[in-house]
């Protein structure tokens, strides 16, 4: 049967620090990348996205960086707050609209 339990990478930060969450994607044909935040017992929530023709995009307290050469995506959260504690997933999609999720990272913010 399926194993149960956390297999996620974890990141623990102090409140007020900056957080950087990393993701490797697999499909070089993907043209759009998204970061989602998922709190316990809830569905994923959109945070920020970036198109493949960009290498950086900024939102409110969040920045996404895309490095297509090494197929790497990162999410930077400035001045991390306790409410930012959640699991963060990157996802990729292309012209077929298939939305594929990467492995998540559990972010814990210590007060």
């Amino acid at each position, binding site marked *: *049967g*399926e194993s*149960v*339990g*956390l*297999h*996620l990478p974890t990141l623990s930060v102090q409140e007020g620090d900056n957080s950087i969450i990393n993701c490797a994607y697999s499909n070089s044909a993907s043209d*759009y990348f*998204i970061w*989602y935040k998922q709190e316990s*017992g*809830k*569905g*994923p*929530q*959109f945070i920020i*996205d970036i198109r493949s023709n960009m290498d950086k995009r900024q939102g409110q307290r969040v920045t996404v960086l895309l490095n297509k050469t090494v197929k790497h995506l990162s999410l930077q959260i400035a001045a991390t707050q306790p409410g930012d504690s959640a699991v963060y*997933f990157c996802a990729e999609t292309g012209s*077929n*609209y*298939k*939305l*594929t*999720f*990467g*492995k*998540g990272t559990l972010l814990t913010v210590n007060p």
Partner: protein
Amino acid sequence: EAEVAQSPRYKITEKSQAVAFWCDPISGHATLYWYRQILGQGPELLVQFQDESVVDDSQLPKDRFSAERLKGVDSTLKIQPAELGDSAMYLCASRHNTEAFFGQGTRLTVV
């Protein structure tokens, strides 16, 4: 604010029984996804609809799972018979252009 509705939120069923989940996407969203998420892992795509047509069901265990979206609006995912390994969160999402919105999910426990 429009949201994706899923029901039920929680379901406990005995193995070998049939179970069904319902999803009502955001109005006007042509693309609808069903995902399965096992605790500690990322969402895995089961089936993707474009209007009423299935565009990807390559990861759907078709011997026991079925999905339909008859009028291209709401959708039903069925499992018959349920197995212990089917215990997971089942997430529905709908998409318009670049952003996908997720429902709160149905937590299935098979006993």
